[in-house]
């Protein structure tokens, strides 16, 4: 009865695909940070992590979250573990409630993502005790941008997931 399910193997190891996309997003974020030269940035890595935790909670491990968190800490010259802790908590929360999040409309998901991005950025602002008007404007701006590009990131990663990790 379930023989056809056994034939369905990923064309490319899921774990590697997830890792590669997360690393790609992490480096994109670093490049974007150097390009924009602002205090805050669009947290592409976090958004990528949110997607994979939501789409394949069984496959995505904590290793990639830890690795990418360290890469971001090193690139931003932060104390090691700052990003990692946020990523771990995010992964935990998303995996905890992934089937509820999956059922949401894309707009609702965007709002959840915006909330997470807002909190993520706010942690940095608080840790650096930097509350200037420009920074707060950046916070709002990047939160809105993140919410707007979430459907794009979702679509892109979904396409990658379907294209590379399944045999039809």
């Amino acid at each position, binding site marked *: 009865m379930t023989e056809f*399910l056994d034939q*369905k193997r990923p064309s490319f190891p899921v774990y590697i695909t997830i890792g590669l996309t997360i690393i790609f997003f992490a*480096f994109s974020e670093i490049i974007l940070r*150097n390009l924009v030269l602002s205090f805050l940035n669009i947290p592409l890595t976090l958004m990528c992590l949110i997607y994979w935790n939501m789409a394949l*909670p*069984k496959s995505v491990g904590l290793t990639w979250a830890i690795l990418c*968190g360290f890469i971001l800490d*090193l690139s931003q010259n932060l104390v090691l573990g700052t990003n990692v802790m946020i990523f771990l908590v995010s992964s935990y929360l998303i995996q905890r409630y992934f*089937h509820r999040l999956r059922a949401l409309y894309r707009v609702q998901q965007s709002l959840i993502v915006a909330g997470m991005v807002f909190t993520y950025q706010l942690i940095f602002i608080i840790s650096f005790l930097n509350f200037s008007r420009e920074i707060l404007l950046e916070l709002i701006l990047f939160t809105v941008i993140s919410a707007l590009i979430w459907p794009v990131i979702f679509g892109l990663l979904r396409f990658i997931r379907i294209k590379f990790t399944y045999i039809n």
Partner: protein
Amino acid sequence: MYNKELKQTQISQTAIFTTGSMRASKILPSFILVLTVFFSDYFFNYGKDIRLFFLKTSQPITEIPVAIENVYDRLVFFFSSQNQLFNEINNLNKEIEKLNFEILKMKGLENENIELSELMNLSKREQFSFSMLGEIKSKSFFPNESLNVSTDVTKINNNMVVLNRNGMIGQIDQVLPNSVKVLPIYEKDNIVPAYFPRTGLNIILKGTGKDKLFSIENLSSGVNLKIGDEIFSSGLGGKFPKGYLIGKVKRISNNPNLKFQTVEVQSTAVFDNGSKVLFISP
């Protein structure tokens, strides 16, 4: 159809059997490990070397935007400077054209001045009873050659002769309200008294109206002529000044049975040369 069912089965199976199974106990060891790293880095700065190493190794990637920006700047600079050079070359070429035109104008002016000074010298040297300068306004070419010359027409009369820097060229045909119409000296049926310096013989030249040619009237066949003999104005009759080269013998037809010989003389007058003329009364 089969694939669609397969997907639906898989999704429903995942939905049923996969629950929010992440427990705090699963994440806790990782979290404690990260916290340890965090505090040890915070208090003892253990990550300093790793950070330096990472920054050094990731420099090529992090500097990609800078490199792109540099390449873009270089490209823009290259094309803008290239464009600037093209514009500069075009402007310089236009300036060269303008200067060439100016040079031509200046050369024209210089020629006019030379011409004028030659004519003034001529006037002074020859001591004509009357002379006046005129400026050529327009020229008509063969077969109806003529010049339209502007001058003070009140002092001009129909008996005057016209000279340019090359010599005698014509005579006045009509005095118009503001200008004078001048016909060439070799105009058809125009008569010019002349002589051969070699023999001292006086002759009458008659314009043929054919390509700057004169014919010699009633020249006896006994007169010794050679092709190339020069003929000068004799000044007889008082209209044309004496001693100006009129032409050279071009062709001689000497029939022993005839009393007169036929001689063709090529005029040396350069009718349409220059821009200034001198009206004179000898």
